[in-house]
């Protein structure tokens, strides 16, 4: 398992992965997110389109990435989450801090507003 990341001219990095984000993959995802942020990619959008399932460990990895990005002055946003991920975020009330954006464009637009502010 590895994350695929692509950075644009706007300084936003899109991160993608395939499969489940669970206790088997969470530690590696957490580390790779930390490496990206340490490397200066502090405005991240995690595209969950091909992530079929997230468990509590995966949620922890996303929270870890969010905290690291915020500490670096950036943010981590999630986009295209499926219904299972939305159920998980709703149950834990973490949608308050990890708002699931419908599309990459919506998540990107949010960044533009921050940049404009």
């Amino acid at each position: 398992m590895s994350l695929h990341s692509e950075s644009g001219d706007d300084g936003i990095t899109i991160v993608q992965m395939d499969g489940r984000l669970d206790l088997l993959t969470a530690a590696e995802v957490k580390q790779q997110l930390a490496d990206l942020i340490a490397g200066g990619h502090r405005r991240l959008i995690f595209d969950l389109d091909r992530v079929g399932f997230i468990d509590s460990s995966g949620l922890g990895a996303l929270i870890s990435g969010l905290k690291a990005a915020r500490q670096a002055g950036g943010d981590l946003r999630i986009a295209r989450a499926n219904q299972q991920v939305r159920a998980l975020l709703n149950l834990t009330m973490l949608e308050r801090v990890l708002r699931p954006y419908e599309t990459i464009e919506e998540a990107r637009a949010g960044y533009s507003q921050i940049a404009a502010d």
Partner: protein
Amino acid sequence: MLATPRSLLIEAYVATQTIDEGLDALHDMIDRFWNDAARIDRLPPEMWRHLFTTALAEVAANGLRHAYPMTATERPLRVRLRLFPDRVEALLIDHGAPYEPLPSTYNAPDHKPDIALLPESGYGLFIARTALDSLRYRRTRSGYNCWKLVKKK
């Protein structure tokens, strides 16, 4: 496979070497269960099913990870899923070391939580307990860990 009309039982015994194989088998089983259930009953809403599946995966992952030593060459896990007219039940049995579930320390965040203070772990039991109507653990006399999960329709 069909016990009585509008009731469904699926049982699986998973004996795998790795947690990865165990979780793959579990997710395959859950998918099959919902597919079979859809043929005999009107399924609960999708969100409801996701919550049950998520709770089941949390408890199973917990068992596969904690009940057996790192060097275990087999991680047996017996899973029984039952659909009733008014509820879905799961029974998970492993042969590993006794496990005493700790109370969940996670509290759902306030309206404007301090992100720096959010925990990065410890969500598992909170998720399982909150998603279900009942989650019970017992150690059987014959030395098995037994979890019973119930979610009412």
